[in-house]
């Protein structure tokens, strides 16, 4: 899914921004972190740019995922905002593409809690 500027939230500053949303799990609690290039040091910012590119090209196609037998697994949703375009990649944690898992790790370590795209929690699921 790709959204073009003007259809989404307010225009961000320059650089890559990634929102990582993790749902499900034993607790069933949704956690959201935001990674913005501007908030990171040069090394992590470079890593963010590279992972965002890799995650975009590793996109999981809808319906591509086997139903699986995992119970209590996490679901990961990554919203990539690059050059004014926005893409969303979704995957179950256990079979998520490597760059998606890496973005989750980076978000948990260095991300800011919360979702700038989420206006008052109105976004569905």
């Amino acid at each position, binding site marked *: 899914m790709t959204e073009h500027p003007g259809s989404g939230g307010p225009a961000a500053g320059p650089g890559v921004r990634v929102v990582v949303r993790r*749902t499900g799990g034993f*607790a069933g609690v949704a956690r959201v972190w935001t990674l913005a290039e501007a908030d990171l040091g040069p090394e992590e910012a470079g890593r963010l740019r590279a992972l965002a590119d890799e995650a975009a090209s590793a996109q999981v196609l809808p319906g591509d995922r086997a*139903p699986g037998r995992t119970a209590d697994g996490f679901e990961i949703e990554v919203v990539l905002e690059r050059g004014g375009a926005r893409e969303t990649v979704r995957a179950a944690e256990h079979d998520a593409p490597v760059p998606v898992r890496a973005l989750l790790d980076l978000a948990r370590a260095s991300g800011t809690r919360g979702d700038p795209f989420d206006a008052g929690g109105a976004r569905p699921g």
Partner: protein
Amino acid sequence: MTVSFRPGCSVVPPYVLEAIVRHGTAQQRDWALSTLALDTSFRMTRAQALLLATPTRSVGVLPARAAAAALAPRRTVYDASGGELPGRPARAEGAGPTGDGSVDRAYDGLGETYDFYATLFDRDSIDGRGMALLASVHVGDHWDNAQWDGEQMQFGDGDGEIFGDFTAALDVIGHELTHGVTQYEAQLVYQGQSGALNESVSDVFGVLVKQRALGQSAEEADWLVGAELLLPGVQGMALRSMAQPGTAYDDERLGGRDPQPAHMDDYVQTLSDNGGVHVNSGIPNRAFYLAATAIGGNAWEVAGRVWYAALTDPGLSSTARFPVFAQATVRAAAAYEGAAEAVRAAWQGVGVAV
């Protein structure tokens, strides 16, 4: 009891005694039971459970191993701290404590859960046929989760901020193993209402394993799920409350207040979490709590048996919604005096018509 015994003095092996309990005349049963009572290698409660067993088992065929030997688990706990799954074998069946708390809690918790199913329901492990119990601990890096992956259980160490080690709660271990049981029985599809039932069944048997281990009656139990997972400073008692869904926690770091509904009027429509399977499970969870407390005594003895009979009912669809599962429990409860009315009232109490 002060009866003394010498190990190995029993001439008749326990599995023969078990067969006599099952198939013998009344006189032979009495003799077998009294012999079993002297044999501490075999649990008296299990023999009694055989006598009390309800006739709701799906097939009349004994599980493969049960006919040949007393039920016993085959556990292996792996240490996944190296990063790969399942990891390095850390404790195999019969081995002593390792000193690694996670390994040893998982080993003991699997043993408690195995014993729960074997003693109460004559069930030999996850598949009913002696399947090995495999669990990995120290999974991931600060992984704040526990899951069943279709073949084994996985437990993380927690994020260290909100969640501690996921092996700390016996009901969580029972919950994960029960996902395996459900996979081999009702196969409840992990989406929407059938998914919430799948979750609820795991919470039900998870807390029953704990209640039985602690010797707590329905009135004495706290009916909390995952109480031991939350680290100090978190505003909450547990992750879920079966007695009062929606009241387990209220902490910004957990997204605010516990979102579980306690009644169909508050059923949550969402795309997340497979349609809110960990949220809407609050409704059948409370139904179980209401049934168990109305029946009274130990929740695993009647209410637990009723729910197990529903879970193993061959007529139950894998896409069953709440009313269909509720009907299966009411049917199963007919085997126990007064239970059917208590179970029916419990479901009505959460807005599920039966």
